[in-house]
C-alpha cells in the first residue's frame, strides 16, 4: 500500500466543518450587439473595479501557422493607428488597470481591468486596440527578437520540451499537436500576413465579451454598444477540426545530457468540458494528483521523497482536453518513480475509491471553485471559459451537484477508460545515459538523442 498511515476515519478531536457552500454567480445580463458581439455582464461590487474578458476563435479554429499566430498575439499590443505601444500602456495605467493578451490552441483571450469609474474608457480602449492595430515595422522587429529569445529559453526548459513532444505524439498533425514556432518562421512572417490573420480573427460576430465588477449591468450594456459600435466584420463561423488522438505504448525519452532530474509527463486525449465523462474524470484526476493530499503526493513525495510536486493537470480544448500527470524526479530514481506512477494509475483504474476519499475530493474541487469565483477576476475568467463551450453561469452553479452524482464505480470506469497505463502516452526528458537503462529493464523505451543540448 502506498500510504500505510492513511486512516479511513480522520482524527477524532478535530472540529469538523459543515458542507462546502453552494456556488452562486447571480443572474447575468446578456445582450447581442448589432455587430453580433455576444455580451454577458455580472454585477459584483466587491471592490470598485471592473474586469473584462474578450475572446475570439483563433489558433486551431482559424488555421494559421504557429509563427503568424504568435506574432499576431504579440503584435496586438504594439499600438494602434492613433496610439503607439507606450501610449496604449499609458492609457491603461491611467485607468488604474491592466491589459493582457493570451492565446491557447482555440482562442485569443484579451483580459483587461480598470477602476470602475473608468469603465467606459476601458471598453473604448479595448475596442481600439483590437480593431485598429498598426503593426509598426520597427516594433515588430523587436517583437520577433523577443519571441525568439523566449522560445530559446523555453526550449532549454525540460518541462517545455516534454510538453511539446507529448502534444505532438498525441495529436500528430492536428493544430493541437503543433509545436511552438520555429525561429525561421518568426523571422519571415510578413506584416501583410499579420494584417490578413487579424482580419480573419477579430470578427465581432464570433467574439464573446464578459464583464464582471462594480457595474450596473443595463448601463454597462449601453456602454458596450457605444464603445464597440465601430467594430465590424463579416459573419463567419470558425470550426476546429476533429481530433484523431494517438497513444504510444513505449516511453519517448528525450536525452539531455547533464540534467539532474528526469521530467516525467504522461497524457491522453480526454473529453471536452460539458461531456458527461468530464466531471467523473476531473474527480479521478483530483484523487490521483489534484491536491496536497492526492495519491501521487502521498506516495511519491510524502512516502518516497522522489519528487517535490507531482500533480495531474488538464488543458481544456474545444474538441477535447489534454489530461495528464507530471513530475520531476532525481535522475537515479527515474525507473522506481515511474513504477509507482504506473501503480497509482493502475490502482485507480481497477480498485474502487473509498467513499470517504471520493467525498474529500468532491469537497476539494467544489471548494477550490468557490474560492476562485469569489474575486471579480476569477469569476470573469471562469464565465469566459465556460461560455466558450456554449455554457453559462448555470454550468458553474451546477458544478457541486454534478460532482455529487459521481459514484466510486463511475470514477473507476472513467479512470480505466482514459487514465489507465495502457491509454497514456509518456514522454521523459533527462539524462539518458544515467536513467534509460534502468527504465528499459521495466518499460519499453525509445531514446531520442537531442540535436542541441546544453551549452557544454
Amino acid at each position: 500500500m502506498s500510504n500505510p498511515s492513511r486512516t479511513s476515519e480522520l482524527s477524532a478531536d478535530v472540529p469538523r466543518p459543515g458542507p462546502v457552500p453552494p456556488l452562486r454567480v447571480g443572474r447575468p445580463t446578456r445582450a447581442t450587439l448589432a455587430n453580433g458581439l455576444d455580451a454577458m455582464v455580472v454585477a459584483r461590487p466587491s471592490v470598485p473595479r471592473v474586469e473584462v474578458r474578450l475572446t475570439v476563435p483563433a489558433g486551431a479554429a482559424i488555421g494559421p501557422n504557429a509563427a503568424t499566430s504568435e506574432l499576431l498575439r504579440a503584435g496586438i499590443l504594439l499600438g494602434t493607428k492613433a496610439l503607439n505601444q507606450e501610449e496604449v500602456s499609458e492609457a491603461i495605467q491611467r485607468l488604474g488597470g491592466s491589459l493582457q493578451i493570451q492565446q491557447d490552441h482555440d482562442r485569443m483571450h484579451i483580459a483587461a481591468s480598470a477602476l470602475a469609474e473608468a469603465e467606459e474608457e476601458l471598453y473604448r480602449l479595448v475596442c481600439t486596440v483590437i480593431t485598429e492595430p498598426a503593426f509598426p515595422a520597427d516594433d515588430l522587429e523587436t517583437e520577433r527578437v523577443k519571441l525568439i529569445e523566449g522560445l530559446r529559453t523555453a526550449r532549454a526548459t525540460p518541462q517545455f520540451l516534454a510538453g511539446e513532444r507529448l502534444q505532438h505524439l498525441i495529436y500528430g498533425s492536428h493544430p493541437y499537436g503543433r509545436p511552438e514556432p520555429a525561429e525561421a518562421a518568426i523571422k519571415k512572417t510578413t506584416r501583410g500576413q499579420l494584417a490578413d490573420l487579424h482580419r480573419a480573427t477579430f470578427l465581432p460576430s464570433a467574439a464573446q465579451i464578459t464583464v464582471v465588477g462594480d457595474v450596473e449591468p443595463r448601463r454597462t450594456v449601453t456602454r458596450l454598444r457605444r464603445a464597440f459600435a465601430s467594430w465590424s466584420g463579416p459573419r463567419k463561423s470558425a470550426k476546429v477540426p476533429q481530433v484523431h488522438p494517438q497513444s504510444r505504448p513505449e516511453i519517448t525519452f528525450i536525452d539531455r545530457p547533464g540534467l539532474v532530474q528526469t521530467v516525467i509527463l504522461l497524457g491522453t486525449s480526454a473529453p471536452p468540458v460539458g461531456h458527461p465523462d468530464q466531471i467523473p474524470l476531473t474527480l479521478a484526476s483530483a484523487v490521483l494528483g489534484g491536491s496536497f493530499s492526492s495519491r501521487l503526493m502521498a506516495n511519491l513525495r510524502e512516502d518516497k521523497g522522489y519528487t517535490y510536486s507531482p500533480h495531474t493537470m488538464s488543458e481544456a480544448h474545444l474538441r477535447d482536453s489534454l489530461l495528464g500527470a507530471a513530475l520531476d524526479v532525481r535522475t537515479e530514481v527515474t525507473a522506481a518513480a515511474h513504477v509507482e506512477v504506473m501503480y497509482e494509475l493502475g490502482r485507480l483504474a481497477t480498485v474502487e475509491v473509498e467513499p470517504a476519499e471520493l467525498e474529500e475530493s468532491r469537497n476539494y474541487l467544489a471548494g477550490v471553485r468557490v474560492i476562485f469565483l469569489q474575486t471579480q477576476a476569477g469569476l470573469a475568467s471562469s464565465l469566459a471559459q465556460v461560455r466558450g463551450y456554449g455554457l453559462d453561469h448555470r454550468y458553474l452553479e451546477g458544478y457541486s451537484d454534478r460532482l455529487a452524482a459521481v459514484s466510486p464505480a463511475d470514477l473507476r470506469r472513467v479512470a480505466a477508460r482514459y487514465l489507465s497505463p495502457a491509454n497514456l502516452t509518456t514522454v521523459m526528458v533527462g539524462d539518458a545515459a544515467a536513467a534509460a537503462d534502468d527504465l528499459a529493464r521495466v518499460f519499453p523505451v525509445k531514446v531520442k538523442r537531442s540535436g542541441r543540448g546544453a551549452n557544454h
Partner: protein
Amino acid sequence: MARSSTPGPRLRRLRLKNGLDVILSSERTSPTVAVGMYYRAGFRLEEEGRTGFAHLFEHLMFQGTATVPKADFGRLITGAGGVLNGSTRHDYTNYFEILPASALEMACFIEADRMENLDLNETTLQNQIDVVKEEVRVNVLNRPYGGFSWLWLSQYAFSTYPNAHNFYGEFADLEAATVADARAFYTTWYGPGNATLVLVGDFDEDQAVVLVERHFGAVAARPAPPEPETAEPMPKRRAEHERQDPLAPNPRVAIGYRTAPFGTPDHLPLALASRILSDGRSSRLQRRLIREREILLHVDGGPHFPIGDAFEFKGPALFTIEATPRPGISTGAAVTAIDEELAQIATEGPTPDELLRAKRRELGSYHASTDSRLGRLSELGVLAAVHNRPELADQLPQLYQEVTAEQVQAAIANWLQPKHSTVLHWLPGSEAQS
C-alpha cells in the same frame, strides 16, 4: 508618512496572554475564510552550517502532530474544500488556509495544534530533506536561469552570513540537519509570542474571537526569541560578478542596490519609483531601453524583486533590476545604459504623468488584492508580522497619492546609485560553480 497606531475601521487586533498577536478582518462578500499564521522566523536567522533550515522546517510543519497524524493533515483541509500552503521569506515564514467559512474553527484548531504539538521525528525529517532537495533541483538546478536573480544576487551583494548565505540551502547542510536542530528551532522561533494570526473573511468578529481564545489561548507561552542581528554597511563601490549557467541560451544581468528601509522617508517614494521605472511598456526603462535605444529585450525590477515587495523585509534588502540585453549587446553595455537612465531620472525626476500613472496602478492593485482572500491576508500578515502596522494596509493607497515627484526623484538619487550596487552577469556556459 502618516503615523497612526489605531487599526483602520475594518480591522480588529488583540493580543492573547501567551503573546499571540491576532488580526481580524471580517469581510462578508463570499462564504470563505482565510487563516494565516505568520512566524517571525525567516532565512536570515539560520545558523552557520544549517543553510536552508528555515525553509526545511517549513516543510516539517506539514508533517502532522501528536493529535493529527501526517496522513490526515492535508486531508482535513482539502477534504473540507480548502487549500493550504506556506512560504519562507527573509524575515518571516507563513502558513495559510483558505476554506469554506464553516471550517474556521477547524483551521484554528490545526494552526494552534501545530504551534504546540508538532511531531518531529527522524522519518519525516529524512523524507522532507529529500523533498526539499528535489525542490531545489526543479527550481534551481534543472532549469535555465534557476534562482536568477533572487537566490544568487544577495550572496554577492551582502557580506555578512545572515544576509549572504544560500537561503535554499547547501545540500550538505540540508543533509546534516537533525531532529534536535528542528526541536530547538521550533521551541525558539515558533512560540505564540513570535507569531501573528490573521483571519480574513466571512465571520462574526465576536464569535471569531471566541474561537481564537478557545484554540490558541491554551498554547503555552515561550520565552521571547532574540532579535536577529542583520545590519551591515552599505557597499562603497560597485562590485561585478559572473555566473555561468549551462542551460541558459542568452545572457542576463541583475543589478542589486540597497533599498530604502520601511518607515524611512524614501520608502514609499522608492516603491512608487519601481513602477515608474519598470512597470509596463510605458515605464521609463522599458520605453527608453527596449523601444527607443534598442539595447534590451526585457527589464523589470523593484524592492525585493522578484520574490517580494517593499514591505516583505525588515533587515537590509535589495532593490533589484533584472535585464535581458538584445543579442549582440553585452551585459556590461546593458548596465551602462541602465545607469544612464537612472542618472537622468535622478536629475530630472519623473514627469507628472509618470507619477500619476504609478499612483493609479497602486490604487487598482490595492483593490484587486483586497478582492482576494489570499491577497488581503498577505497584505495584513506582512504588515502586522514584520512591521507591526496592519492598519497601513488600508492607508497605503492614500499615502501613495501624497508622494511627490521630488520625493521620487530624491529616493532614486539616494538609493539607486552605481557605487552602492552589485552587478551579477549571468552568462551561458558550463562552469556552473564560478
